[in-house]
């Protein structure tokens, strides 16, 4: 292996890459679009729950409860209705996703030592949204109910503690539960997977299409030198992308970066290895750029869905959970989220690092040996 030959090969690749405007587009535009999309859109935060209110009691108590809902940052009272029929129409049409129905005699029953009727209706179609919204509603209702119970007991001359259990939730790593904090580290992993794989596959297939791969093969370059030279630009561009996203994430979206930045940088190549290997594989089985795109798409779709990027792996059925152990991106997402949000060091990341390393060597090694066989 000669350094100068690798260097010339790299130089050629860089020049070619810079000439193709589409590649520049591929390097800078997707990360930015994705960051904006995922940073602003991919929020599973449940806020502004549109609420319809039906107050059949028209009393001080019912208005107090409605005020509690109005005062909550999670609910937006959209309409006040006068019949149950209207609630049905509003929910059917999707104009509101929640409704409270305060029955007649609400106040009288509270004052008279009875159970007052209160119905909360939630659009369950989006199950997670409904679970969280239902949780918010029940917190408001139980606080209201506890206060009334205290008053009721006080009227009997009893000063008792109503809730003998104080649950104090403490949330680590993402105290305000902001989705963006979870998404941005994930995007780094996603883009690296997509970018390096697609670009390296296309880079090689392009040479195939133009017939220039033959020319490269007859030069004194060894297959290893050829590959290193070919892949180096993609490694560099991925690193640029990582810096871009991390910078944007930290300074624009204010995602906390608690860990060691240099640890992250040193683990990035570990993930590049399997991505480059896959790209190489794709280039071997595709004869045109169109085919490479299609194959890449077919590989990426399930990879992204099963990586844990949006859908938690823990909730998948066991067979599929097992399959995810063979996806390098799964480990990398854990690593990058660990460094970003948990600020943990290598001693905690080790269980993710070694499988990633093995997979990387395996995939890359296999791809290279296939490549060598093919060109010799």
């Amino acid at each position, binding site marked *: 292996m000669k350094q100068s030959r690798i260097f010339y090969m790299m130089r050629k690749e860089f020049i070619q890459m810079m000439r193709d405007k*589409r590649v520049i587009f591929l390097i800078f535009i*997707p990360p930015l679009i994705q960051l904006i*999309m995922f940073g602003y*859109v991919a*929020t*599973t935060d*449940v806020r502004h729950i549109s609420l319809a209110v039906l107050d059949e009691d028209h009393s001080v108590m019912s208005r107090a409860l409605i005020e509690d809902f109005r005062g909550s940052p999670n609910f937006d009272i959209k309409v006040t209705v006068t019949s149950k029929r209207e609630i049905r129409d509003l*929910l*059917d*049409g999707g104009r509101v996703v929640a409704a409270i129905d305060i029955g007649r005699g609400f106040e009288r029953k*509270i004052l008279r030592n009875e*159970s007052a*009727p*209160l*119905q*909360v209706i*939630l*659009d*369950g*179609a*989006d*199950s*997670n*949204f*409904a*679970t969280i919204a239902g*949780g*918010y509603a*029940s917190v408001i209702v139980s606080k209201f109910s*506890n206060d009334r119970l205290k008053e*009721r007991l006080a009227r*009997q001359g*009893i000063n*008792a*503690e109503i809730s*003998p*259990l*104080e649950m104090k*939730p*403490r949330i*680590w*790593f*993402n*105290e305000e*539960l902001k*989705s963006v904090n979870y998404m941005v580290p994930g995007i780094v992993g996603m883009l690296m997977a997509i970018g390096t794989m697609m670009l390296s596959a296309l880079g090689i297939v392009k040479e195939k299409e133009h017939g220039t791969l033959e020319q490269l093969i007859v030069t004194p370059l060894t297959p290893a030198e050829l590959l290193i030279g070919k892949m180096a630009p993609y490694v560099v561009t991925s690193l640029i992308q990582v810096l871009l996203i991390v910078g944007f994430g930290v300074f624009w979206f204010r995602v906390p970066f608690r860990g060691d930045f240099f640890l992250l940088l040193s683990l990035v190549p570990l993930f590049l290895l399997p991505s480059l290997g896959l790209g190489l594989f794709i280039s071997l089985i595709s004869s045109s750029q*169109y085919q490479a*795109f*299609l194959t890449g798409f077919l590989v990426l*779709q399930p990879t992204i*869905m*099963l990586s844990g990027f949006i*859908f938690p792996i*823990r909730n998948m*059925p066991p067979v*599929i959970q097992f399959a995810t152990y063979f996806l390098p991106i799964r480990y990398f997402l854990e690593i990058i989220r*660990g460094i970003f949000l*948990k600020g943990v060091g290598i001693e*905690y990341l080790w*269980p993710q690092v070694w499988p990633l390393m093995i997979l990387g060597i395996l995939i890359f090694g296999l791809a290279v040996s296939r490549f060598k066989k093919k060109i010799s």
Partner: protein
Amino acid sequence: MRNRVIAVANKEFIHIRRDPRTLLIVVLIPVLMIMLYGYALTLDVNHIATAVVDFDKTQISRDFISKFSNSRYFDIDFYPERVSDLKSLIDLGRVSVGIVIPPDFSKKITSGRPADVQALLDGSNSNTAAITQSYVNIISSQYGLAKASESLAKIGPLKNVNLNVIKYDPRFWYNPELKSINFLIPGQICIILMMLSTLLTSLSIVGEKESGTIEGLVVSPIRTRELVLGKIIPYIILDFFDIVLVIALGSLWFGVPIRGSLILLFALSFLFLFSALGLGLLVSTVARNAQEAYMMSTFSTMLPTIMLSGYVFPISSMPVALQVLSNVIPAKYFLIIIRGIFLKGVGLSTLWPSALALFIFGVLMVTLSVSRFKKRLT
């Protein structure tokens, strides 16, 4: 005119039949995607990995812990001795919630004083954490209430006080068991259709451009309108086959209920196909080659469709500017329609605004691609 449209459609059919890749995309991908995603993708939060640090170690604290282990939401995997062990379990990602019971727990519970229990949650996945938190709250407040009434009962003359101030009755309509699959499968159907339609049509005209056969079409007596219609018709038929396929799999295999009219669903799917295919055609009039067509359909349709249509991420939680932008995403309207018919069982009287939007969008897309096509040819 009709003859010429049929001729173009016929020619397109022959192309499709000859290229096995297209047929593969049409049949295999929808089935694979809906099977894989139907099984793999769930937003349900069950079996949360839990660790409990019990400093009290009494009958009462164990009773409290059993409230968690008996629910289907929590799997208590570890009983660490120290809080620091709990912390490293969370750091390692082995558990996502830890419950710490203080040493004086049973003493305080029996004497009716408030006992402090701490729940430590791994918040890195904000969504899972929020749901976990609400489960923890529900279980502990139920326990607290039960204990409160026990200790109040001991005070004595309370038999005439009703502790149930409010008969709280939450109902979840449309999806009472709150299964996320009922939410995701209709969305998945919409995404698959959108993807196939744009991918296939955007490649069809570009393919003619690349192979140079477009010149032949241009010099023939066909009008642009006829050419575009003839190109769309075969894909409408193929896509319609896909619609039947994925809807059948979703409802028969995954048991997602269809509460509304199936005929209305098919009829409105046509409207959606028109906008999706029109969009694909528009892309292909702009793109010069397959690669560009692919790139453009990914970034102009796929990504916005997945992100902004309300497929997973609720539109109401987005910033206002993006909420406005979501109005030009045809999938948004189709999602309202498909979820409305599947889950809510509503009819045209409720869905007409979305149907109208799809219709306008479809007409606009087809007209636009016809006019773009004319300009390019002259």
